[in-house]
């Protein structure tokens, strides 16, 4: 029913956008403060990135960005209401103002940034599209997939990458379109398709949930750039700045070695950048329209980027992803935040 419902919602929302007289002149920041909670668009459920845990509390590295923004705005990371969005309705939900920000493994592309009226504020996970197959097929490279049936989630950049990859390599395939991650899992495990393709992170997350994860292998080829990051509506730069720097604060926190455990000790650090970040040197919060301890709240309640990564998707979790590209620039990755000054 969700598909029909989501389609319906997208239609109603688009019509709603048109009917609603352009009255929302107030800035998103004011609106969020007035409401007392942050409305954050999340995945409908992708383990490690954004999914409710056994107790019904949302968890994941995408969810942590929402929590960081709530910590920055309210000083309380729990003041978030999560709105699960399918890949299909996510942009409409954001455009219509139902959510304040979207943090839901969404690829930053030119057309989405420019044409859809969105503003991507950064990258919280550098991903790329991969292929997963059953080990019993004996396939070791994506170049051997000629003639395969491929399960693919609709409404994503993945479809186009898939079409391009097979065309470029002169191979044919049968596309089996599915609506959500869980349907893809069902179709793939039933053998409706040989291959499941989506962002490699999603493949690892799915695999962790299979009865026998070791029976499936993610092929080495990564066929696309998928920088995943949070997005806000275009045209409200103050709000975009808050979300951007909430994410940056987590990355800078890791760079400076500030964790949720040592954040109080670090307040007496001698490093001027640490002092600026934690608000000991006053003034930086006010520039964003926030209190001076905004980044302190993020780091103490949510933790730095590394903590978030290790807790939700790192090698010690069932998802089991190495830092790879997502290591800091000084550790061999490409994660890099502008200086805090």
């Amino acid at each position, binding site marked *: *029913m969700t*598909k*029909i419902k989501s*389609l319906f919602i*997208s*239609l109603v929302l*688009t*019509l709603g*956008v*048109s*009917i*609603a*007289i*352009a009255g929302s002149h107030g800035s998103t920041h004011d609106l969020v403060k007035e409401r007392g909670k942050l409305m954050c668009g999340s995945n409908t459920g992708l383990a490690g990135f954004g999914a409710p845990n056994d107790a019904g509390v949302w968890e994941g590295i995408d969810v942590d960005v929402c929590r960081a923004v709530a910590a920055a705005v309210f000083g309380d990371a729990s003041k978030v209401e999560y709105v699960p969005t399918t*890949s*299909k309705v996510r*942009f*409409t939900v954001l*455009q219509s103002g139902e959510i304040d920000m979207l943090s839901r493994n969404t690829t930053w592309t030119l*057309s*989405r940034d420019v*044409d*859809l*009226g969105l503003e991507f504020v950064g990258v919280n996970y550098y991903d790329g599209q991969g292929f997963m197959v059953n080990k019993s*097929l004996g396939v070791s490279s994506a170049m051997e*997939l*000629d*003639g*395969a*049936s491929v399960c693919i989630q*609709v*409404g*994503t950049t993945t*479809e*186009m990458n*898939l*079409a*391009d990859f097979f*065309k470029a390599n002169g191979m044919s*395939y*049968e*596309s*089996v*379109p*599915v*609506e959500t991650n869980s349907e893809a899992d*069902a*179709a793939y495990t*039933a*053998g*409706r398709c*040989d291959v499941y393709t989506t962002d490699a992170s999603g493949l690892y997350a799915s695999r962790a949930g299979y009865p026998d994860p070791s029976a499936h292998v993610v092929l080495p080829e990564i066929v696309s750039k998928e920088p995943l990051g949070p997005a806000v*509506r*275009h*045209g409200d730069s103050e709000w975009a700045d808050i979300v951007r720097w909430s994410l940056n604060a987590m990355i800078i926190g890791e760079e400076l070695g500030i964790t949720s455990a040592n954040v109080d000790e670090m307040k007496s650090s001698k490093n001027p950048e640490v002092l600026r970040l934690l608000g000991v040197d006053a003034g930086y919060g006010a520039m964003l329209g926030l209190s001076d301890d905004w980044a302190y709240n993020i780091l103490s309640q949510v933790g730095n980027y590394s903590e978030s990564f290790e807790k939700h998707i790192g090698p010690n979790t069932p998802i089991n992803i190495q830092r790879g590209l997502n290591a800091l620039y000084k550790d061999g990755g490409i994660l890099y935040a502008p200086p805090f000054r």
Partner: protein
Amino acid sequence: MQTNFFRKIIFDEKSRSLLIQTLVIGLFALFIYLITQQTAYNLEKRGISSGFDFLHISAGYDISIRLIPFTSEDTHLRAYFVGLLNTLMIAVCGCFLATIIGFLVGIIRLSSNWLFRNIAYVYVEFTRNVPVLVQIILYYSILLNLPKIKQAIVIFDNFYLTNRGFFSPSPIFKDGFSIVAWSLVIAIIFAFFLKRFLKKKQEESGKQYPTFMINSAIIIFTPIIFYYIMGMPLEFDSPVLKGFNFKGGMVIRPEFLGMLFGLSIYTAAFISETVRSGIISVSKGQREASQALGLKSNFIMRLIIIPQALRVIIPPLTSQYLNLTKNSSLGIAIGYADLVHGFGGISLNQTGRAIEIMMMVMLTYLTISLTISFFMNLYNKSVQFKGNA
């Protein structure tokens, strides 16, 4: 003079109602105009581009279930036609199957056999009262649990049943096959005129002819004779398991079958009720009178009861056809690439043109529905009482 004019408009019933109707239509037009303007304004303000230019850029995705060739380099407009044809295909096949099942079940429900009657009753009550979406997903799940591709069930050597679809040999038409096809067309036309001729003769002489048998023989044997005369210009390309999938042949995908079963089994239950009520509506005296004339029981059904029942059956049957066609948009639930799934879903997401695309999809469904209504109304007219009676 002027006061007279206004007085006339206000106090004369005809011109007053004309005035009010004009006002209402004017207000409605204004409302539509304002909404359109506001939409355009809001879209522009939010930096969302609009327009129909996107129809001519390449779609960038592939569609597996298709009746016309389509690659990722084709335009969104072509993706629209691929989806439209898939919608029409499922609608036509679904209505056809639903009508057959519906008529059979409707007649069986009036049967004197207790077991048959009650099986039909259970079928109708069960399918009618479970949402069609649930049924579609159920049938699809069952189809997904068929054997995997490597363990395909083999039927008559060349047919394979798997959870990726039903694979069968595909015909390859060689030179001269068109003559066989034409011979079939001519045989059908000939049979049609023969039927009229024999019927006229029967009306004149009262002698009965086995028209159905003769015509069946003509229609079946003419193309077969021509097939051998032309040197059997037909070959079959059998599917062969190569690598991941079967190569060659034809395939019916489980997504299509799931939709077909779900839609037609569900709609057939409603049609059977329509048929049953149509048959009951024919007065008992008609049956008794025909029995008194000594007609055989299947003649009574075919010549007396059904033609009269059709008058009652056709209008609700039309609305069942419309329902089935509109319900075909549920294909989105199991990945059947219909209009809503492909063009209304994937293209929408790639281009972000929600309003334009949904407008196109809505107008398309409207057109299909009105066309069905139009033809069913024509048919309805042809089965109603003729003359002044």
